[in-house]
């Protein structure tokens, strides 16, 4: 039975507004900086920790105990996690699962990522909801020096350039030819496309028109990714405008925001980011409600849709915000939520089925 002996080490989580939380160290003993975000998902901590959208961020889980299923080799959303730290109420000292390979504690150590437990994560979540996004640090001592370092820290706005693949690579299949533009791609997207036996080529976010066109894609996926869509170079928007008229196009997360901007809509930052997996989403065309995983810090402004060739296909019924868009004239659509269900309710994977059906319909093929 995998049982670990913890040596209690006191460490501190400090926020840029001066808030100090005392907790117990786990994972790596490194000092870390990042933007503190909270995630309300009850399961799927491995997929969340490894999701590249958390580049330069420290994740806090509101679910009280994290780590009970350990870490396996099937739920990684990236080869190397991009997250800067993990904050929990309690780290499970024993982890058991039939596919478990190692403990969360060992996994974080392996990747030199610090964690901190015994934090009142619910109080801290309320605090974050009031104050908005804050820089935070996990440190040995909450002294002036630590705060100076924290306040002096500047987080890059070049996350995508740093996390996107530098070179094209293949994820071969025997079906439709799909090109994925990598803005911080999570593996779940590739897993879903593999389920449809798509012959996938992943290209860097900076790919040129010719680099995409030379692959004769049957469909184009604009991946999710970290950061502010306004920081994405204009060339990527041009690429969306060029290809939405040519092949079925599917934008996810950041890709959804870029699809909106490329077609003239406006994107703004949320006061409190949505990170969770129980968000009720209404599909406008059927009025069906489904539950979906969200990881969004930005949103498409509903008022800005009017003068665009887009219409709204999905809405978050808790705040009436746009969760899906579609082009009026072309087979191009996007969703704000994570349709790869890694982690999350399987019903949201319908969006991939929809995309692949559009791709096959254009090919004159015979799948629904």
């Amino acid at each position: 039975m995998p049982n670990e002996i913890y040596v209690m080490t006191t460490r501190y989580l400090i926020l840029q507004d001066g808030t100090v939380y005392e907790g117990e160290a786990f994972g790596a003993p490194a000092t870390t900086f990042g933007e503190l975000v909270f995630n309300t998902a009850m399961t799927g901590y491995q997929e969340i920790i490894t999701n590249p959208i958390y580049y330069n961020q420290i994740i806090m889980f509101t679910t009280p105990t994290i780590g009970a299923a350990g870490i396996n080799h099937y739920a990684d959303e990236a080869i190397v996690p991009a997250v800067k730290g993990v904050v929990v109420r309690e780290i499970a000292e024993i982890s058991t699962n039939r596919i478990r390979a190692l403990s969360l504690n060992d996994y974080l150590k392996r990747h030199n990522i610090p964690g901190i437990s015994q934090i009142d994560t619910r109080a801290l979540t309320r605090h974050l909801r009031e104050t908005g996004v804050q820089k935070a640090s996990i440190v040995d001592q909450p002294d002036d020096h630590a705060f100076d370092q924290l306040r002096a820290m500047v987080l890059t706005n070049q996350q995508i350039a740093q996390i996107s693949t530098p070179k094209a690579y293949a994820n071969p299949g025997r079906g439709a030819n799909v090109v994925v533009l990598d803005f911080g791609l999570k593996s779940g997207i590739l897993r879903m496309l593999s389920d449809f036996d798509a012959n996938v080529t992943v290209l860097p976010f900076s790919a040129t028109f010719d680099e995409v066109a030379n692959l004769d894609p049957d469909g184009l996926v604009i991946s999710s990714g970290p950061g502010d869509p306004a920081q994405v170079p204009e060339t990527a928007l041009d690429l969306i405008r060029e290809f939405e008229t040519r092949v079925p196009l599917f934008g996810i997360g950041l890709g959804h925001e870029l699809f909106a901007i490329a077609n003239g809509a406006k994107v703004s930052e949320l006061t409190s980011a949505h990170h969770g997996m129980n968000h009720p989403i209404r599909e406008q065309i059927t009025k069906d409600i489904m539950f979906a995983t969200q990881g969004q810090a930005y949103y498409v402004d509903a008022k800005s849709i009017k003068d665009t060739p887009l219409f709204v296909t999905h809405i978050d019924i808790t705040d009436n915000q746009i969760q899906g868009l579609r082009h009026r004239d072309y087979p191009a659509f996007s969703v704000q939520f994570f349709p790869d269900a890694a982690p999350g309710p399987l019903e949201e994977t319908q969006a991939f089925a929809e995309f692949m059906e559009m791709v096959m319909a254009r090919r004159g093929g015979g799948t629904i």
Partner: protein
Amino acid sequence: MAKEIVDAMAMQRALTRITYEIIEKNKGVTNLAIVGIKTRGVFIGQRIADRLQQLEGATIPVIPLDITHYRDDDAERAGEKSSFNVDIDNKRIILVDDVLFTGRTIRAALDAIMDNGRPAAVNLAVLVDRGHRELPIRADFVGKNIPTATSEKIRVNMKEFDGQDGIEIR
């Protein structure tokens, strides 16, 4: 033995996709009218109209069409006419049926439509295209292409009529 080849969810998705494609192709929903071929074509047409209503807030008329009198294999009843209660002159018609097979039903439906007016255009939407055409007819919107043998039967089940959604081959 019947085998379900499209489940309820995939069938819903196909109807949704057809609806989006209708908006794409017609650049909106103004001036549209749906003609549904009885029996299941009417239910499919109604579902497409419901979707257009939810999405665009537009009420699209759904005209049920009984093509019996227009069939080319029923000489006794030939000559009778079906009359619509909606004016279709200059309308963009979406003709809807569940399965496209020989094309003879569609040929009959086109005759019935033309007897009732002069639409600006007629597009054909079908949930299943099973091949084996005997006339030069093809669909503009297809839910699923299902290659079949002539000996096989395709059955579309609709919740409104059959109690559940799904497509079976037998």
